[in-house]
Structures are given as C-alpha cells and as structure tokens.
C-alpha cells in the first residue's frame, strides 16, 4: 500500500463504516432488544482497521516529512502535526469505543452512538491533515456536529439536554466568528491554501490582526480558552464517560490544532500570536485550578481540570511561537498526548465507577466525591487507574504528566527571559495548587471504610477495565521513559514551527 492510498483509507474507512454501523444497528434492532453487538464490534473493527493505514502513513511521514493528497484544489497533507493528532485521536477513540461497549449497552440510540464515533474520529484526523483554510473549518464543523448527539446522548435527562444546548449554541457562535475570519483572509489573499496565504499576508497590517483575533476567539470556544470555556464543564460532565474522555482528551486539543493551523497562515502578519497564547495560558491555568478546587462532582472537577491542563499546552505552544523554541512545541504536543492518556483514563475510570455505582443501577445521579470513599477495596484496578491518572495530572513522577510539564517548563527557561521564568514559576505553582484537589480524591479512594454506595455497587466488566489497564500502563511507561514518544512529538514540533515559518 502506498502512502497516498493509506491516507485516503484512513479518512474513508471510518466515514464509510459509519453508515454501515448505523444500518447494521437498525437491522438487528428489530430482532430483539439490545442486540447491537454486531454494530458495536463493527465500529471497533473499523477503528482498529485504521491502524494499518495509519502505520503506513506514519512511516512515509517520518521518512519524507509529509504525505500529500491533492483532491481538486484542496491539499490534504499529513505532516508531523497531522500524524500526531491522528495517532492521539485514534488511540483514544479506539479505547473509548471499547470502554463504551458495556457503558452504553442497552441504551436507546446505541447504534447512533457507534455510528457517530468513527465520524468524530475521522473528522479530527482530517482536521489535522487539511491545508485549506476553509476546508479546515468544514472538518471542524463536522467534528462539532457529530459530537452534539454524543453529548446529548442521555437526552431524557434534563441536565444532558441543558449541557448539549449550551455546547451547541456556543460552538456555533465560535464557528461563525471563524467564518468571518476566513472570509477576511480570503478577501485579502484570494487563496485559501495555508502555505500560500502566509507570504501574501506579510505586512498586511491590522486587517490580519482582526482575522487572527477572530480565529483565536472562534477556535478558542472549542479549545475552551477562558472565558470562552463556559460550555465545557457542562458538556464534559454530562456526556457518557467514553465521550467525556474523547471530548476532554482530543476534541478540545483538535480545536487547538485547528487554531494553530489557522494562525500559522497569519504568522508573517504579526508576531503577537505567541504572546496571546501565553496570556490565555496563564488565565486558563489559574481559573481552571481554582474552579476545580471546590467541585464536588467528579466529572465536573475533571472537566475544570482540563481547562488548567489546556493552559500548560498553551504555555508550551506560546513559548514555541513567540520565541521559536522547539522544545516548547514538542512539550506542548507531548502534553497533549499525555493529557489524552491521563484525562482519558481519569474520565474512563470515573465513568467505570459511575457506571458501577449509579448507571447500572438505573440512576442518573452524578458521581460525587463521597461516592469514591474506599473504592479501592471493591474496585482495586479501577481505583488504582483513577489515582494514577489524577496524580499524573497533578504532575507527579514517575507518571507521564510530569515529563511533559517538565519539557514545557524547560522550554520556558530556554528563552532566558525573566518574565517568562516568572510565568514558568506561576505554572509550577498552579501545578502545586492542582494537587490540592487531586490528592484528596486519591486519599478518599484508598480509605479502609467504603462508602455505602461502593458496598452496593455492581461489578465492573473486564471489557471496561481493559482500556483502563492499557492507559494506566501508558501513563507509567511514558513517565519512566519519556523519549518513547519523541519520534512523534519532534516531527510535530518541527511541522508546527515550519508552518509558522520559524525554522
């Protein structure tokens, strides 16, 4: 298989599989209730079969720096950044699908759930590939649309509906602002190819600033920059846990990649983008951590902590863009991957507990902190996974979150500027602050006296525990041997800097 075919397959397989999954689900629906087994395995098989073309593409990308696919006048180029996003997305969505087998089993619309998951995956991969500014928006919008039903999956629950409607309206406003920005750029340059735009906009002055501001705020809604983040805690806490993991682990990061892609085309128009990202980084870290500090619902707390984690990524990318430090971009990408692993793990583990303690007993109550008391006594694997995820998010070694934060902080110091050193110290202080809410949860989990709910909880299926184990292993492995992922983050960093004309 040559690389172009592989890239095509990578995008086509899930998009074709999706209607098939739906149809299979509908057909078996009439036979007997809850017979979605074929559909769910087919969805998983579709995602799993994407790994082969991904590997082929990855080899080509690492060897030649990119795989080009010209479709009409739109260029789809898998480069380091796209490859990074594809690997991260596919990793997490495969595991989240596997996790959801039991989680959404027996819910109505199960076949739609499995039909939309491959679409969501494909749109994120495509978003990382495209080199056309408008096409980027279309992928972005398709990603958003395919996630609406997934957020509103429990649409008999008031809270899910409320979260979904807020998510939808705010996303839509964000994408409208992006559209305005795109039309500005198109007006100025008469082209939509990102690489062609960049030189054309050199020194174009204030109008490009307007476009960039629209991009930052528009994509920023999906990326959950404070104060555009308000949909996030609602949507992430109300979605089914597999979807929460995807939303928090890759969807908001896909928004960030989209933002970086769009800003890349404006990099010659203004040097301000890096500084802007740094400002949002500081805001996100502080706000996210403070908001998470007093939460009582586990998934909501995790959602707020995503804001803070987004801050670290922004710090890395901001340093990279403002000063051309490669370690910053590499650290940012490394943190995206680690965050996908750790936050994915946290949401899945919390989801497993939520399922065992509430959902499988027919209750749609939220999982609160008190429910976790003594979970380790009854659910040792899940509890251990959750504590690894939380401590990793808090930046403790030997877990992966420590490594990526380290790389980001190191990049901050490489600038050799005092204000940036203060920003790094500020970020480190925030990391300490975040332990103020991660650590107590871990303590709860390992109590000797289980809460009443834990005692009454149902067992967790092995199929649900498998993704948890794999992600835990990844968190520890990357924490012990950080250079395991260098092959992925370095080309991504190079690709990003190249897109900004920095190297």
């Amino acid at each position, binding site marked *: 298989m040559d690389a172009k075919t592989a890239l095509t397959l990578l995008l086509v397989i899930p998009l074709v599989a999706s209607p098939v999954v739906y149809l299979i689900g509908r057909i078996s629906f009439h036979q007997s209730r809850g017979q979605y087994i074929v559909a769910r395995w087919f969805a998983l098989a579709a995602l799993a079969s994407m790994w082969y073309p991904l590997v082929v593409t990855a080899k080509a990308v690492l060897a030649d720096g990119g795989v080009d696919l010209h479709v009409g006048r739109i260029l789809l180029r898998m480069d380091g950044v796209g490859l990074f996003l594809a690997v991260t997305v596919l990793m997490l969505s495969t595991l989240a699908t596997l996790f959801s087998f039991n989680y959404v089993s027996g819910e109505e619309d199960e076949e739609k759930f499995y039909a939309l998951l491959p679409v969501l995956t494909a749109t994120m991969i495509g978003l990382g590939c495209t080199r056309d500014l408008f096409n980027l928006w279309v992928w972005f919008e398709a990603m958003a649309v395919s996630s609406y039903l997934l957020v509103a999956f429990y649409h008999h629950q008031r809270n899910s509906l409320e979260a979904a409607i807020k998510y939808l309206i705010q996303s839509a406003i964000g994408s409208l602002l992006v559209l305005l920005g795109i039309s500005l750029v198109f007006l100025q340059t008469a082209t939509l190819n990102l690489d062609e735009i960049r030189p054309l906009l050199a020194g174009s002055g204030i109008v490009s600033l307007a476009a960039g501001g629209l991009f930052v705020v528009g994509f920023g809604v999906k990326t959950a920059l404070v*104060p555009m983040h308000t949909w996030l*805690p609602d949507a992430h806490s109300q979605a089914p846990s597999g979807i929460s993991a995807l939303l928090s682990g890759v969807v908001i990061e896909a928004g960030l990649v989209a933002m970086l892609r769009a800003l890349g085309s404006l990099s010659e128009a203004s040097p301000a983008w890096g500084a802007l990202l740094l400002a949002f980084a500081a805001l996100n870290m502080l706000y996210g951590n403070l908001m998470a500090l007093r939460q009582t619902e586990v998934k909501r707390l995790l959602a707020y902590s995503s804001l803070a984690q987004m801050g670290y990524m922004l710090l890395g990318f901001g340093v990279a863009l403002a000063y051309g430090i490669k*370690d910053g971009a590499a650290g940012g990408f490394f943190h995206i991957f680690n965050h996908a692993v750790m936050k994915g793990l946290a949401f899945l583990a919390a989801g497993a507990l939520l399922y065992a303690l509430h959902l499988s007993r027919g209750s749609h109550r939220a999982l609160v902190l008190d429910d976790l008391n003594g979970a380790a006594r009854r659910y040792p694997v899940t509890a251990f996974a959750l504590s690894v995820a939380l401590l990793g998010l808090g930046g403790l070694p030997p877990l992966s979150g420590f490594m990526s934060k380290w790389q980001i902080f190191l990049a901050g110091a490489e600038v050799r500027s005092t204000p940036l050193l203060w920003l790094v110290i500020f970020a480190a202080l925030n990391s*300490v602050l975040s332990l103020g809410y991660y650590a107590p949860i871990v*303590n709860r989990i390992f109590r000797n006296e289980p809460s009443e709910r834990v005692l009454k909880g149902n067992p967790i299926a092995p199929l649900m525990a498998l993704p948890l184990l794999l992600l835990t292993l990844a968190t520890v492995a990357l924490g012990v041997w950080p250079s395991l992922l260098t092959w992925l983050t370095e080309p991504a960093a190079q690709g990003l800097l190249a897109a900004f004309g920095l190297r």
Partner: protein
Amino acid sequence: MAGILIALCIGLPWAGALLVWWIGNDNPRWQHSLAVGFSAAGGLAALALIGLRSQGAGLSLKVGGAFGDFSFVPDGLSVYLTAIATVIGSLAVIFSIDYMRGEEQLGRYYALVLFFIGSMAGLVLTNNLFLMFLFWEITALCSYGLISFHNDDPKAVAGGIKALIITQLGGIGLLVAAILSYSYLGSFDTNLLLQKAPELPANVLTILAFGCLAAAAAKSAQFPFQTWLPDAMEAPTPVSALIHAATMVNAGVYLLARFYPAFAAVPNWREAVMLVGMISALMAALMALAANDLKRVLAYSTVSQLGYMVYAVGAGGVLASQFHLLSHSIFKALLFLGAGAVIHAAGTRDMRQMGGLGSQMPFVRTVFVAGALALAGVPVLNGFWSKELVLEAGLSGGPVWVFGLMIFTAALTALYTFRMVWMVFFGENRGGLHAHEAGAAMKTALAPLALGALVSWLLAGPFSRLLAETLPHHSIHALPTGEILLEVIKAPATYIALAAVALGLAAWWWREKLRLFSEALSGILWVAAHSFGFEAINRGVVSVTNDAAEDLRGSQTGLLNWNVLAIIIALVLVLLLLALGA
C-alpha cells in the same frame, strides 16, 4: 560492576515494590518476607557499592533532549547516603513486621516504602539535575502516600497533603535551578554545574543558589517550611523513622552539600543558609520542649538537628554536616523505632499518659536511652562527635552570635531529650499503661542501630577519606580517625558545648527549683506550642485560596446568555489587545 550495583540499589527495592503490590493483601506473610528480602538485598548492594566508589558515571542510559541522559555517579557522598537509605530502610521494613502486623492494605504500605527506598537511592546517586528533581518528587509522593496511609483518619490525610504541597512548593526552587542550568549550560550534569558555576551570569547563579536553598529548606523541614514535618507524624512509625528522620529529610542537606562549592561565592548565600539552619534549630528545640506527643517531640528534634546540618553547610563544614547526618540518621532512626515500640505497646503517643514504662520494656528503654544520649550530645556516643564537629565548623566559618545561639540550642536539646526520656520511661506510670516488651523483629531492627549509635564515630577517618577522594570540588581533607577525634577534644568549642549540655541536664535535674524561672519562660513555650504562628499562616493561606475558589464559582452562571456575552467580551478584548499591540 558499579553500574550493576547502582541498578540493583534502585531496581531491587522497586522490583520488590511491584512484587509486594502484585501479590495482594491476601498473603501478608509473603508480603512481609518479600519486603524484607528485597530491601535487605538492596542494602547489601549499597554496602558493596561503597567499595566501588568513583568520580565517573557508573551507569548511563541514553535519553537525551529535554531530559538529559539518565546517568548515575557513585561518588562518596552518593554511596554513603545510598547505604543509609537502603540499610536503615531494610531495618525499618524488618521493624514493620511486628509493627504493621494485622494492618489492612499492607501491599500499599510495603510497595510505597520499597518504592521510596529505591527512589531515595536514585536521588542521591544521579548526577542529572532532571533526574534529581524527578526522584525528589517521587520521594515526596511516597512520603505523602505513607503519611496518609490511614486514609480514614482526617488528620493523616491532611498531614499527607500538607507535606506534599509544601515540599512541592519548595521543589519549584529545584525545578527552576535545573531548567536554568540547562538553559545556560546546555546540560543537566551536576559536575558540569560545579565546574562552570563561576562562568554563569551572576543573577542566574543567584537564582540557582537560592532556588536550591528553598528546595532544601522545604524538603528538610527548615524555616520557613518546617510545619509539615510534625503533621507528618501521622504516618506509621517505621515510616517516620525511615522517611521523616533518617533519609528523605536529609535530601535537602544533601542538595546544599552537593552544590556548596558552586554557590559558596554567591553574595549572602552562606549567611542565609546559616540563618535558616540556626532559626530552625532554635525554634524547633523550643517547640520540642513544649510538646507532649512523643512522636512530635522527635519530629521537632529532627527539624532542630537538620538545622545543625544546614548551619554546618552554610559555615563551610560540608564534612561536619555529612558526618552529623550519618550520626543523626542512626540515632534518630533508633529513637523513632524505639518510640514506635513504645507506642505499639502503650497504644498512645501522649507522653503525659506514659511514665515508668522502663521497667516493663527494659530492652527498648536501654536502646532508647542510648539514642537519647547521642541526641543530647553526651560523650562518647556518635552524636557527640558529629555535633562538636558541626559547632567547630560553625565557630570557624560563621559569626559568633549565631554560634552562641547554636550552643544555647545544644543546651535546649539536652533539656528536652531528658524530659522526654523521663516522661516515657521513668517516674510513675501516670496512665496506668500495661506495656509489653518489643517483639523479635523489632529487636532485630533496634539492636544494630543502637550499636551504630555507640560506635559509628569510629568511622570518622574512613568517612572523611570516602568524601575527600571522590569529591574534587569540595576541598575536603582526609584525616585518620584519631586525628579528627583529637581535633575535637582539643577544640574549645567542645567544652563550651559540653558545658551547655551539662547545663541542660542540670536544668532538668533541678526543674522543681527552677519552677519560677520556667514560669517566666512559659510565654515563650506557649508561643512555641503554637508553632510560632506558622500554623496560623498555613491555615490562612489555605482558607484564602478556598474562599477565592468558592467565590470564583459564581462566575459560572450557567446562563447561556452570559456565556455568549463572555465570548463576545473576549473577542472585544482580544481585538483591543491586538490593535493596541500593533
């Protein structure tokens, strides 16, 4: 060969940790024996490593990039601290067989202890600043996990989180030092830093030096970060002995000693170090005098003794500080484990409930008194010699008034030590407690430590040679044991200190007659009992943060229109910023 031993020192306890955890809590016997086996094997590897000490890297794994190469150097400072960590670690594990018998979740306990032992060895063995920070944080993680081992006890949970957060706060200093060092030197190599320190820009070196001081102060529970250590006493006592007396808290002193040659020339740095040490020593001694909880007294005394070591480093006495570290590790581990035996037998930590326990547990009393005498600095025990070396270094390298206060602290040390021993083992049995003698495993752990407290000072000569040979930047002179001891005996500081110790002893002896005097001092003791207000500051910071967080939650109104308004306001602000910036 050295590489293999290094790998064993770190790897054996880690492998043990995994195995103990894997076996599960259904097989406590296996857990006990595996933990002992692996920790003891690690200890043997560390002892063997002493013979193979060298200046070069013994083990190096290629990683590169932002993480440097994972390399380990078995120089004198490293190998002896590794030996302390692993040997005392295995003794604490042996002690735990009796102490932790019948506890729930033993797997978690042993896994964390073993994980800690390996990480502590890694912390002192590595010459990569990044790895040093990594192990630094891992030890904090283990310490947190072990302090709050009894998660059902809110005090234990609070103590664990407090320890974690405060040491992490200080850890930022080490983080900054490490990343700055990489930024300016292009490497994490500590030896390179020692070599090239004079070439660094002055302000960078200053940040490095004070960053390390902050990290060390937090880790070693020195002023102004000392508050976490007393609360850490909620940990099971073998853990207190291992982590919060003999090993982890020494990491700060180790850090200062390691980088002393690089930072000594930084203006005000040595003075700052001496002051931190002095204030910690004095304050903690006063607090120990006011405390009634046996473990807290020992914790305060640990802070105080660590203060001595920090003071010695500041005064330029790296050898003295390290020698005191060695002595202190031995006698403080002995004291803690002895206290553990007492607490295990008596079921309380309150000294006011105790008294007269000596007749019920003669073995524990004997070894405890040996440790206490060493702590008080009574000749001929190891604490005497090392403390005199510290004071001597202080007199020659620092201001006299600081030295005077340290002497005063020595008197206080003697006073609170005798008070503690008396309240526990002698006098009348106030609580009517029925204590039983320590078990066989406990005795096995206590005996070698007691022996060490009696004779470890004889190692002064080899110890000086160990450090002098492999630390080219520290300019330490190797002397035979006899000469070092003679030097101590001839020094005037020795007699001043001895007089102070005698004074402390006398003050305890005639405590009834000095009642008026002690009442006059009760104000100071009251302040000391309230930790000189530092607890209040801690609480204040926590409550301000919590209140701010709670108030901030109002910003999430949940009303769609406000959410949209936030987006639009953000747009306006971003556009304004960009327009103004252009």
